[in-house]
């Protein structure tokens, strides 16, 4: 932030740049596990499922109280995840349908509660709207402190439980067979995602959070087969997207969130095309070389 101000940025602009890139980094790192665990869309569902909790917390306290809103959002997010798990486990409803049901019904209930709040003409209702759609450009000091906290917690938890997370991400059944508390580890991972979403919501909104959890991780996957490299890359990609998006919208007046998503998407496309081994161009070249080597004359003469 101080560096940003040295470049002649205003305090608010520096704050937004710092917050957006840090949020991108934290969400990118945490999102890697969601991508690897096949839960890319759970983040989307979770971000939506937080809405009724937000509204109930607002109705309860009657004013915008950050801790209450965050707690409400987290509780209903976890409830949503619980419902998805229960439906998959105890009914014939498949996971995709369970996610879509939780997403739409929780949001529907949230919208009803929101209209109740609007009918009451409670003060601070405009702030609640911002909570849902996100207002990256008007990020305040409190948001940035929360995001910094999130990034630190994410860094600590991922470093401390790196081995456990790695095991559960790649082979949960093996982890269980080896006697690891796979469920608890999995739950910790989910909790980390919930916390990231809840903290990111006021600054980023539902859709940007869903994107930040998936796109950097999926892009990083092209470059490497090693988890720690993937985590670092995803963090960098997320930060770069946040920085670019926020930077562009300081100069041009367009909404920040979508531009961050587009920046992340650009990184994704570049990764998909140019990554050394898993990238599209590299794989195409490999295919061509293999075909050439296997053409009839070469095979017959035994040359390679």
């Amino acid at each position: 932030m101080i560096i940003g101000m040295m470049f002649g940025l205003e305090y608010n602009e520096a704050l937004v740049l710092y917050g957006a890139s840090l949020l991108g980094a934290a969400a990118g790192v945490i999102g890697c596990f969601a991508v690897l665990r096949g839960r890319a869309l759970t983040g989307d569902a979770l971000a939506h499922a937080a809405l009724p909790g937000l509204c109930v917390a607002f109705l309860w306290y009657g004013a915008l109280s950050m801790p209450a809103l965050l707690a409400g959002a987290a509780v209903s997010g976890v409830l949503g995840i619980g419902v998805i798990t229960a439906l998959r486990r105890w009914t014939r409803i498949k996971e995709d349908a369970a996610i879509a049901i939780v997403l739409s019904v929780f949001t529907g209930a949230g919208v009803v509660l929101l209209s109740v709040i609007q009918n009451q003409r409670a003060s601070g209702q405009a702030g609640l709207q911002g909570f849902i759609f996100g207002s990256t450009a008007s990020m305040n000091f409190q948001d940035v402190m929360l995001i910094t906290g999130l990034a630190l917690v994410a860094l600590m938890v991922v470093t401390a439980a790196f081995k456990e997370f790695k095991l559960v991400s790649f082979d949960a059944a093996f982890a269980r067979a080896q006697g690891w508390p796979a469920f608890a580890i999995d739950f910790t991972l989910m909790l980390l995602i919930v916390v990231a979403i809840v903290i990111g919501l006021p600054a980023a909104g539902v859709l940007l959070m869903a994107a930040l959890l998936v796109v950097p991780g999926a892009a990083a996957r092209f470059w490497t087969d090693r988890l720690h490299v993937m985590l670092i890359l995803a963090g960098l990609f997320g930060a770069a997207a946040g920085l670019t998006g926020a930077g562009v919208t300081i100069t041009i007046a367009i909404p920040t969130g979508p531009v961050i998503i587009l920046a992340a998407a650009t990184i994704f496309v570049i990764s998909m095309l140019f990554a050394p081994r898993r990238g599209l161009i590299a794989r195409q070249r490999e295919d061509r070389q293999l075909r050439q080597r296997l053409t009839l004359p070469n095979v017959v003469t035994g040359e390679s």
Partner: protein
Amino acid sequence: MTEADAYRIVWTIVVGSLGATACALLGCFLILKRLSMLGDAISHGVLPGIALAVLVSGQVGGVAMIIGAMLFGVLTVVLTEWLSTAGNVSEDASLGVVFTSLFAAGVVIIAVFLPRAHIDTDCVLYGNFTNVPLDTFTWSDSATGIWSEIPRAAPPMLASLALTVGFIALFWKELKLAAFDAALASAMGFSAALLHYLFVALVAACSVTTFEAMGSILVLAMLVVPPATAHLLTDRLWAMLVWAAGLAVSSATFGYALASQWVFNTNVAGMIATVAGTQFALAVVLAPRHGILVRFLRQWRLALRIAGEEILGSLYRHEEAGRVGAAVSLHEHRLSPWIVALAFARLRRRGWIERLNGGWRLTAAGKHEALSVVRSHRLWETFLGKEFELPIDHLHAPAARMEHFIGPQMQEELAAQLQEPHLDPHGKQIPSP
């Protein structure tokens, strides 16, 4: 109620039901193909199509917007599939990448090129049912009063429902096959892929025509929730479609009634989604065959029967060894003590066992029942020993499981095949009735 009120109520419910039914019918196939989140992705991914169409045609609404939406709906799906096959990205991750990026592109296009276009984010998400009966056109000069006016939202809804019903009727066989066995469908020679893209285009068209009134959240809710509820209630495709349509109509009706009449003035689209969710929750618990309650009861009755048969068999073996009035312990069976206690109470009530010196004794009727259990057990041991040549110490465990599922008919068949054996491989008597 004034005539104006009646007009408002009737038309809101009619428009809501038409849109909800069209979505729900299409949604049945989304659920069965396990593509539910595609509904969410398509309803976001069409935004750049809508924006571009508005940009090119210069007006909000109209055919251009629907075509733009259909193109980008299909593009969403094609891109997702391409990412997951060519790019080796998992299917859910590629869906997440594609629809968020397309939606963001749409928002940016609108912000840059159409800063003055009337595209209200609140409306896009939550719908605008209250506006439905207000924005009308005249359809007939002969009708009198307000009923000569029809809401503008109605014809597109009716058209998308008609298109959906027509599509399903026309491709009924193919859709059914593709929904349950896409590989077989391709092997049988019709292009499952082409049908799939047609279907996706229809979902996109339906989303865009319905979401002006319903909002994107309710479109997704209607695509997924009534079909999932129907899926819990029936195993037949046509019945599932009928249920889904019925549930969609009842969600729209009760949702509107709740939002406008009983629970003062809340958001209609949100309430319809909530009612659909409540119906789903009820079906999860109470559905006749796939409900949690019925499945729990089924398991519980099975456990009770097995516990009872274990008690009878155990007492029979004790009495066979001359220990009449023995205490029965079922420790090795890992049955819950509640189930065991209930099983004892049930056997006693039926008059199959009675108390004797602190233990239990079989009555005559009980002995008859117990004999059948032990006969099943020992016949199965004999069968395994003879036909599968299992070693003698491997016979008891499988027979202890199978004894509960061998009825009188199978007993007869086993006995006949084994030529009416009298002794099992352990040398114990096989009792016969």
